[in-house]
């Protein structure tokens, strides 16, 4: 159980897919203009990552090495399509906002990366921990990013049609925050914050990996 928690926690802090591993960034920067969209994106990723981890890990002995990538992609694409159809049916407004980014989860290297680097080599129990941990790490960062960008960039937070929080009327919303440069600026601060937190808790500097590199074997 301790091992399970350790693996889960790695995804959130020390191996956070966004702020440390730096994978799956394009979707993150693009959809983090609204908390509502970001939250559902986070949930979608948790579901896809969790489910694909379970399946990949449970059939890992049956899938020959040479065809593993096509098999992973089919599995991931199936779960993404399930999310896509479900969101279209039940939260159409959010679906419209997320648009192409939902189907694009299929090619998000975070999901394939975890299947390849972790689930394919580890028992189901740990693969679940990794999938949920990485998914949650993604969701937390994207929601925080969206919260800052939406609140300070447009002056209010609208969630499923309800106004959750708004700044005083005279607040001069700096539009740049909701534009692309704002995503990079705010994200930079979050990366710095995570690095600082990770250094404090582990007592060493955690290297930020280059885009799309994944460590072999996991654990």
């Amino acid at each position: 159980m301790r091992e399970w928690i350790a693996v889960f926690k790695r995804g959130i802090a020390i191996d956070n897919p966004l702020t440390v591993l730096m994978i799956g960034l394009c979707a993150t920067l693009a959809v983090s203009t609204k908390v509502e969209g970001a939250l559902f994106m986070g949930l979608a990723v948790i579901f896809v990552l969790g489910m694909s981890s379970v399946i990949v890990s449970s059939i890992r002995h049956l899938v020959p090495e040479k065809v593993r990538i096509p098999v992973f992609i089919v599995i991931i694409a199936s779960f993404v399509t399930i999310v896509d159809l479900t969101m279209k049916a039940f939260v159409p407004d959010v679906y419209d906002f997320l648009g192409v980014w939902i189907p694009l989860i299929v090619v998000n290297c975070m999901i394939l990366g975890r299947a390849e680097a972790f689930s394919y080599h580890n028992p189901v129990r740990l693969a679940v921990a990794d999938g949920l941990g990485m998914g949650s790490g993604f969701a937390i960062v994207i929601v925080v990013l969206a919260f800052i960008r939406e609140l300070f960039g447009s002056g209010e937070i609208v969630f499923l049609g309800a106004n959750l929080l708004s700044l005083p009327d005279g607040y001069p919303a700096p539009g740049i925050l909701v534009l692309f440069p704002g995503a990079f600026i705010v994200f930079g601060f979050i990366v710095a914050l995570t690095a600082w937190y990770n250094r404090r808790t582990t007592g060493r500097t955690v290297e930020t990996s280059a885009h799309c590199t994944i460590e072999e074997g996991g654990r």
Partner: protein
Amino acid sequence: MRRAESTPLNMVTAVLVTCAVAATSLTLTYEVTRERILAQERAAEERALRAVIPAGEEFEIVPDVLDEAREAAGDTPVGAVYRVTGVDGTFIGWGVRAAPRGYAGPIQLVVGLDRAGIVSGVSIITMNETPGLGTKIVTEEGWIEQFVGWDGSDIAASARDFDAIAGATKSAVGVREGVVAAGRVYEDVLMSEMGEVDVP
């Protein structure tokens, strides 16, 4: 347990079985969600149509004129043309669904025209404009009402008198293009069509 060897048979079996299971589960999901998805789309469209022609009761798609309408609209994609009738079944106007290009992808909107071709309202169904800037086409109070009263039979003249929004020029011009397209559809297609369709 050892991993399955990469023999041709193993590889083919692994991929085929995965695909079959995936296809089955997707079919099931599709079956479960299909009705709801269709209902959601119909509801969104009907809401938009009601907003642009409040007196409308029945919104009936006119498939025959769609090809001509698309030609009339030029570069702006037209999704559907609706014939709108009131509570007592009298013909009261038209709805045109168009998808002009905004700053971030198409802006799906519906334009309502009364029987004389005067724009009675514009309603945006979906868009992906920048929050806080492009979204002003919806949130800016009174902005979208400027199109009310534009004359579909001479849309080019009406379009000269147009207020964009600072910081959201492309989004605003996108909406204008949608209205212009609807006007052109009226001018070129619906105006002459009216006699035939309107016979009780």
